[in-house]
């Protein structure tokens, strides 16, 4: 058994799987971070991912190309994000509640669209597995030839690269640009931001739309990246895990990256170890990533400090 464990932890494929399983969470979480810093709770990423997943599958099916799929995925994610923005920013409704409603709606809408597009008209249900054009791994020249590291990091799906480079990009934008300053000020002190002429409404809308775009891509990574079809409720809680990672990482890009990596690692471990037939029931391993996240949260992360205006609708005084 010990040798088998060593074999797992020394195999390149294992670490490549860790990166692959981390990527969708990372994409969504980096998108979510931007809206979170602008004061919007991103509990609705689950639904946006699901919309991205169906958008990717449908777009890829109709246009016959992966790029078309990605475009549809982004639009579908942003569509849900727009609704979410209307609820949070314009209406000023409770954000978590709106998110719960939209997640439910995305579950229904994605399954309905799937049935509309792919089902057998006579029976009314999807009778055969439809496969659509899907992404292929791209080996990066030179970097991909580095022994070990090349196979782990540089022979992945294009969206995986995007997920990885989104970490420094989001960090740079948030902390080194005026846009980032605007976003953070809107999340920390919207009234002050408003006084100096920043449009709180516009910044929040754009931030949420960016979340939708990224979560949509994360969903596409599931449907036309790792598979070549859509499955009902295929996000399976990953949007929630991405949200967890944001809190886990204390709203900092690097922390969030580590949080998603921890989950990806636990996920990769459980996938491999299940096959070993250890005297530990496999249900334990399925629960393992969630257990690790919960324990890490309680033991190491401690109390979270939210962006000051998190979840609060903005209203100009005197209105």
């Amino acid at each position, binding site marked *: 058994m010990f040798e088998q464990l060593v074999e797992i932890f020394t195999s390149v494929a294992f670490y490549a799987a860790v990166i692959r399983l981390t990527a969708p969470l990372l994409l969504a979480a980096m998108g979510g971070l931007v809206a979170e810093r602008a004061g919007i709770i991103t509990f609705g990423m689950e639904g946006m991912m699901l919309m991205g997943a169906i958008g990717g599958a449908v777009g890829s099916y109709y246009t016959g190309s992966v790029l078309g799929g990605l475009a549809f995925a982004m639009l579908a994610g942003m569509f849900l994000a727009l609704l979410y923005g209307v609820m949070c920013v314009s*209406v000023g409704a409770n954000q978590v509640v709106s998110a719960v409603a939209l997640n439910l709606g995305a579950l*229904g809408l994605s399954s309905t669209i799937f*049935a*509309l597009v792919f089902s057998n008209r006579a029976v009314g249900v999807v009778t055969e597995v439809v496969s659509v054009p899907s992404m292929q791994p791209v080996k990066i020249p030179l970097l991909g030839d580095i022994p070990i590291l090349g196979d782990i990091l540089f022979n992945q799906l294009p969206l995986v690269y995007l997920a990885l480079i989104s970490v420094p990009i989001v960090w740079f934008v948030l902390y080194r640009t005026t846009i980032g300053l605007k976003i953070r000020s809107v999340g920390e002190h919207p009234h002050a931001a408003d006084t100096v002429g920043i449009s709180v409404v516009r910044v929040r809308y754009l931030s949420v739309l960016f979340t939708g775009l990224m979560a949509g891509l994360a969903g596409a990574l599931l449907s036309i990246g790792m598979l070549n079809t859509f499955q009902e409720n295929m996000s399976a809680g990953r949007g929630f895990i991405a949200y967890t990672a944001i*809190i886990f990482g204390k709203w900092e890009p690097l922390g969030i990256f580590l949080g998603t990596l921890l989950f990806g690692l636990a996920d990769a471990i459980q996938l491999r170890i299940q096959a070993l037939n250890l005297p530990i029931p496999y249900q334990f391993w399925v629960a393992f990533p*969630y257990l690790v996240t*919960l324990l890490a*949260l309680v033991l190491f992360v401690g109390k979270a400090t939210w962006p000051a205006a998190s979840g609060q609708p903005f209203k100009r005084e005197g209105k």
Partner: protein
Amino acid sequence: MLSTQEVTNRWQIVYRRFLERSFNILIPLGAILAAFLISSTLIIARGANPLTAYAALFAGAFGSTNALANTITRMVPIIMTGLAVTYGYRSGFFNIGAEGQLFMGAMATTWMGITLVGWPAWLLIPASLLAGALAGSLWALIPGYLKARRGFNEVLTTLLLNYITIQLFEFLIRVDHVVGPGATFLSWIGLKDPSQPFPKSAYIAEAARMPSLTSVITWLGGTTEDPALQRFTLAAVIAVLAAVVMYILLFKTTTGYRARAVGVNPRAAQYMGINVMRTTITTALISGALAGMAGSLEIMGFQHRVIQNFLVGAGYDGIPVALIGQLNPLGVLLSALFFGALRAGANRMQIVSGAPVSIIYVIQSLAILFAIAGTVIDLRPRRLKQAEIEEAKRVEAELAAESPSAPAADMLGEEVRHV
């Protein structure tokens, strides 16, 4: 004797309250109607007739005793989880974990029913229900404690616990349930029926099942042919009673008052001398107990055993049920009826009209969005809003002269006598 002026004033207050109350119902009703209207575009896109689809949906939910039994069966667990979410939410504890607590409750109740087989019904039924409530409570204590003592966001912890609970359940229904000689701790807590290979438990003892309408009719000396009547059980009565009890607890007792005070503004509640930590933990326990009982009632009232995927999503459904019910226990009954009917009628809708079952999720989602938007935007007539502002000013002026604790209570919109 009251002067004419006073009589007119009283009538105005009664009239205003009536308008206020009817708006509490009108908003969700309007929201539901709008949701049906918008969703019909999806049905048209499918090439089906929305009217046919909705008629089939209605018939599938209320058209026969069997349909009605389906609706009631679907209602019972979501009434309980809806109450769990309502009570938690009112006290600032957003319990996303009702799903996991429900599973814990179902497991505990099943365990009682397959282990204590010799017990008489008058003892086993309450004991099984209590076991479910306790299991749900204890499971909610984890996020409750973490929130109260260490400030952890309960949305996160309850959500993660749900995934863990489901796997615990998946594991235990695969462990043979053996008590007595040769039993180990694992086999003692295991739930699987050893006499068959599938991951499901044995049926619980007859004495652990909720009496049904059929058994009442038989007891009264009558006979009935309709098998659907077996699904009209005491579980439904208990769920309705639970809603009434929760209404009283939330709005007519000190416990409920404290809970709501913490929900509105924990800091203000602290200043008023309410122990916020203890209130949060109590809230978690009560909310968890309700969710646990959702599992108990499902097992004791309808399924009589646990099986893989025996009740998926009823915990999460509690959230929209609570919200459409305007976070009022009695409103939860009505919104559970709406959700239960949608779920019960969905299959018939698909068979008759070809509109996919998943459309009902869209309907639910839109209904919630419209309902919360309607509440926030404040669609009430100007007369009502104006009356509320004047009322608030009057109360404020009155209280300004009184004791220092009064303004805090005023902020919560409550009378001081509760404190």
